[in-house]
């Protein structure tokens, strides 16, 4: 049987963004084909990140999406998708140990407050009250009580599972090589063996979006950076907050399973040797030990927690640190959702829902105009 390779929307990339868009489109009655270059759903950043569902520390341009998602979508997501995404909305602590740290945190806090976010600076006593396991050296933190975390691997696969049940056609191992306009509109997507056609084509392929978009003359200024995570054995339950530090030594949380998931970098990433393919980069030998030292500075109680696994993933870092989302005026039919710069997971449901709306209705409920493709200009 030859399947019709046509749908209302063809999505390139089955990460959490592609899966979420496909689910919300399908809810709106659209037919969708999702093409994934690797063999696994959610193989890039979607399954390699630290699971933060944060608003604090966000750029004002993407903050509305983050706030919208946490208010409207995350609380009922597990129920909606029929899979426990392990979502916890129990706050984010960004920790500081020096006056310089507090200065950084104060700056972040001031900007967020200006955007209407409930975030404030707290002193060491209050930090200890929220999380008694932290080092006595912590002198303060920024505290956003409505932030939280979820399980990124499960959430990605939950979107996939639900979308698949609703009839979205997912094809893995189908690497997109070229996009093509037909009669004034981007319609066609070519892989090595096959071609696909849609009224809209969404490119949500992480860093690889750049090469794919290049085939239609669109360039998103981004680079890739290797970030690494580690996970410990299950430990007795300690806390439910998401954690970070002023100096970004590490970030992470304790999962429902009991294990701690922490991410971080060595500081050498920008010029580090290429660690291999986008879908299975190897760890750098020095990074996980560095993350461990970062954690122990704040969490001496975890020094005996045993690490069972480490992994690496590429961030698709945009020139200005926020994603590129939405229509590209010069190429009708094209929708871009990439360059999430390492904070795409938390906003993924909102991005999925809003881009589905954009495709269906031509407009969004949340203002994403600051994230449009055409924003990049020379400095002078």
């Amino acid at each position: 049987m030859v399947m019709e390779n046509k749908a209302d929307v063809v999505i390139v990339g089955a990460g959490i963004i592609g899966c979420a868009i496909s689910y919300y489109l399908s809810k709106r009655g659209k037919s969708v084909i999702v093409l994934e270059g690797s063999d696994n759903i959610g193989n890039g950043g979607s399954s390699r990140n630290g699971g933060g569902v944060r608003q604090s520390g966000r750029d004002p341009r993407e903050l509305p999406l983050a706030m919208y998602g946490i208010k409207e979508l995350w609380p009922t997501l597990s129920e909606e998708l029929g899979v426990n995404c392990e979502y916890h909305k129990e706050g984010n602590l960004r920790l500081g140990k020096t006056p310089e740290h507090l200065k950084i945190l104060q700056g972040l806090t001031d900007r967020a407050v200006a955007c209407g976010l409930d975030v404030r600076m707290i002193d060491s006593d209050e930090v200890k009250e929220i999380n008694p396991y932290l080092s006595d050296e912590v002198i303060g933190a920024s505290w956003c009580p409505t932030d939280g975390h979820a399980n990124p691997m499960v959430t990605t696969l939950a979107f996939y599972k639900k979308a698949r049940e609703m009839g979205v056609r997912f094809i893995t191992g189908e690497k997109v090589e070229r996009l093509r306009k037909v009669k004034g509109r981007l319609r066609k997507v070519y892989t090595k063996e096959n071609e696909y056609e849609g009224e809209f084509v969404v490119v949500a392929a992480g860093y690889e979006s750049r090469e794919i978009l290049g085939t239609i003359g669109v360039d998103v200024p981004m680079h890739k950076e290797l970030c690494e995570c580690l996970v410990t054995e299950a430990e007795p339950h300690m806390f439910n907050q998401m954690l970070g530090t002023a100096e970004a030594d590490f970030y992470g949380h304790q999962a429902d399973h009991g294990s701690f998931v922490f991410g971080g970098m060595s500081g050498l990433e920008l010029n580090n040797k290429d660690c291999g393919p986008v879908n299975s980069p190897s760890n750098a030998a020095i990074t996980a030990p560095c993350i461990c030292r970062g954690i122990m500075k704040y969490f001496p109680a975890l020094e005996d927690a045993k690490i069972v696994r480490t992994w690496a993933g590429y961030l698709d870092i945009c020139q200005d640190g926020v994603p590129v989302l939405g229509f590209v005026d010069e190429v009708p039919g094209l929708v871009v959702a990439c360059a999430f710069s390492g904070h795409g997971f938390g906003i993924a449901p909102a991005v999925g829902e809003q881009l589905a709306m954009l495709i269906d209705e031509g407009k969004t409920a949340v203002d994403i105009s600051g994230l449009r493709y055409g924003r990049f200009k020379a400095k002078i």
Partner: protein
Amino acid sequence: MNTVVDRSIDIGEFIAQPDDDMLICRCEEITKGEIRKAVHDGMWTLTEIRRYLRTGMGLCQGQTCSRLVKGIVARELGVSPAELEPATARSPMRPTEMRIFGTEEV
């Protein structure tokens, strides 16, 4: 491997089997039935199964169960186990205390 797989191909309904309650992943206590069900939920690769269910993500990192899980998934999909790519090997190869992992002699 990168072979084109259409995830909407019909692999049949999930039919309960008498040994579905057999424990397969000893560390994370995942049963055969849960693994079979996950395949019908669309998890067709060992990597997806592992991320969805946590099989092989416990203390032993799949030393004991990876071969068993592979067999179950292959049977459910009607393919040979050799066709299924095993999940990636991750360091550290043995559980290692954070205190030790963070103490380096370069």
